[in-house]
């Protein structure tokens, strides 16, 4: 069929395809770029409609500077967000690698029960158990602490990441373990030196999802963090956007949103392969 189409028809088809692609791409990317560019306007200009989106009266970092003057400041919230996200990544990777290995390679009482229990939590929306989580954290003395929030975020990651890791370990041929055992590898060496390098792509995938999940989560942070010094970026920025610190400074909102978006975009662009892999694993299974 391809030969039947004349060269001109082929060119027209290609032109149509790429125009569609470019227009759609612009529509998807424009709001992000628009915000990032507007954030560089001086505060007075940032209050006006963003036409054009780029600064016309000179490039300025004023919006980022003012952002730091609200409440405990942008930097404090950013630090909270970074702490929560990094801890969520570390803990969910450690817990899921251990559990994935356990579920893949050992047989023990209640194994199936535990596995089903962990996976079935995906069916229960955490939004519906936030009140008791609040009370549990209070009981544990973790009320209004970032550590408590990390605990909640790690738990939310577990069904996906343990499922991923168990499959990753299942895919490692048992002969490799056997050979290592012959060489006298103990359990710790086996997991860290032999198995971990083989399941590394899975680890990157779950780390990426854990980061994005923790960095972007809003409702639990809004409910559980009552003290302003503990606000993560989404909660802090929403407080700012709601006028809690006086008249809404849209320039500061643009700068804050940019700070919130950029790490996600960089990680995604750098690790796209792992992201798509994670989605596929979820979609195929």
């Amino acid at each position, binding site marked *: 069929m391809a030969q039947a189409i004349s060269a001109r028809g082929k060119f027209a088809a290609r032109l149509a*395809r*790429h125009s569609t*692609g470019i227009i*759609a*791409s612009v529509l*998807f990317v424009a*709001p992000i770029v*628009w915000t990032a560019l507007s954030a560089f306007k001086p505060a007075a200009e*940032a*209050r006006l*409609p963003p*036409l054009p989106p780029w600064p016309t009266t000179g490039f300025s970092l004023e919006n980022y500077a003012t952002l730091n003057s609200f409440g405990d400041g942008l930097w404090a919230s950013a630090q909270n967000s970074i702490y929560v996200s990094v801890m969520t990544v570390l803990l969910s990777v*450690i817990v899921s690698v*251990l*559990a994935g*290995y*356990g579920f893949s*390679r*050992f*047989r*023990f*009482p209640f194994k199936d029960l*535990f596995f089903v*229990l*962990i996976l079935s939590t995906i069916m*229960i*929306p955490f*939004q*519906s*158990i*936030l*009140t*008791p*989580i609040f009370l*549990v954290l209070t009981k544990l003395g973790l009320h209004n602490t970032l550590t408590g929030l990390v605990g*909640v975020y*790690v*738990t939310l990651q*577990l069904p996906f990441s343990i499922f991923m890791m168990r499959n990753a370990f299942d895919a490692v041929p*048992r*002969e490799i373990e*056997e050979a290592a*055992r012959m060489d*006298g590898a103990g*359990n710790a060496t086996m997991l860290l030196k032999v198995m971990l390098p083989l399941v590394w792509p899975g680890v990157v995938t779950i780390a990426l999802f854990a980061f*994005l999940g923790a960095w972007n989560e*809003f*409702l639990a942070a809004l*409910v559980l963090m009552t003290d302003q010094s503990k606000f993560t970026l*989404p909660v802090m*920025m929403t407080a700012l956007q*709601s006028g809690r610190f006086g008249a809404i400074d*849209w320039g500061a909102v643009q700068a804050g*949103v940019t700070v*919130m*978006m950029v790490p996600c975009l960089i990680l995604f662009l750098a690790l796209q392969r792992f992201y798509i892999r994670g*989605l*596929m694993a979820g*979609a*195929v299974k």
Partner: protein
Amino acid sequence: MTTITASTTAPPRARKLVGAGRRQWIGLLYVAPAVALVMVFFVIPLGMTAWMSLHNWPLMGEHAFIGLDNYWAILRDTRFWNALKFTGYYTVVVTIAIFAVAFPLAIFIEKPRPLTNLYRTFFFMPAVVGFASASLLWSWLLNVDSGLFSPAAYDLGLIDKKFNLLATFQPAFWSIIAMVVWKVAGFTMIILMTGLQSIPQDLQEAAVIDGAGPFARFRAITLPLMRRTLALALILSVAGSILAFDQFYIILRGGPRNQTLTAVYWIFNQSFVSFKLGYGAALSMVLLVILVALSLIQLWLLRKPEGLD
């Protein structure tokens, strides 16, 4: 050491003989942290939700057992039913809108052709941005004075005075739909793409030889073979929409005139604004039942098709 190795590699029958070894119990240690977390942050809270829903439970002071009174109160709570109705309406509209955009995009990027990967990356970018960031971003774009849409339309002469998109229900609602489609379509597109790519190429070619047109091929081959993928994308979209909160809280604060309060938003208000924790728990139980029912439908839709591998 060698016996243990044998136990893990041997076929099931042999395993029973050697594998009862104590070493297998170590597995419990490996999964213990995960099980502990799920217990503390999921199972116990879940049980507490059920327990609290039977109580009058203020934030401060004593709570009192009141049986099913909270549930009777829900039956009379017209504002909750309105919120649920709105959530249902939003879910249907946004899911249709997402599919209407995501399916053509999935077909567009399915085959590896020049620049396809680049387009795919662009379409997907809003999906990795959080709902809170996206909502904050759009609350600015939608703002009547400092935003983009209203001033741009005014400058272009499309409207003769600035129009506040967020002041009345219809424009506010459709603005949210536009924002969510922008944010989520790329995600749904990738899921649908995996389904499209899993259709064997020779089936399509055979149909072409048999003289089937593109529409007939789409209906007779693509759709049936994508059933599980479609079901998955549908369920993800429906479950996500039923739990919608961020965009309505950040952009609209439930307004105009409380017309866009979703179910989660109403529970949030009852539990953390009015501090009626017991009542909030009972509302949560209703939401939970709805979502578990949905998950069961999902399992049924996602069952392996009979006759096909």
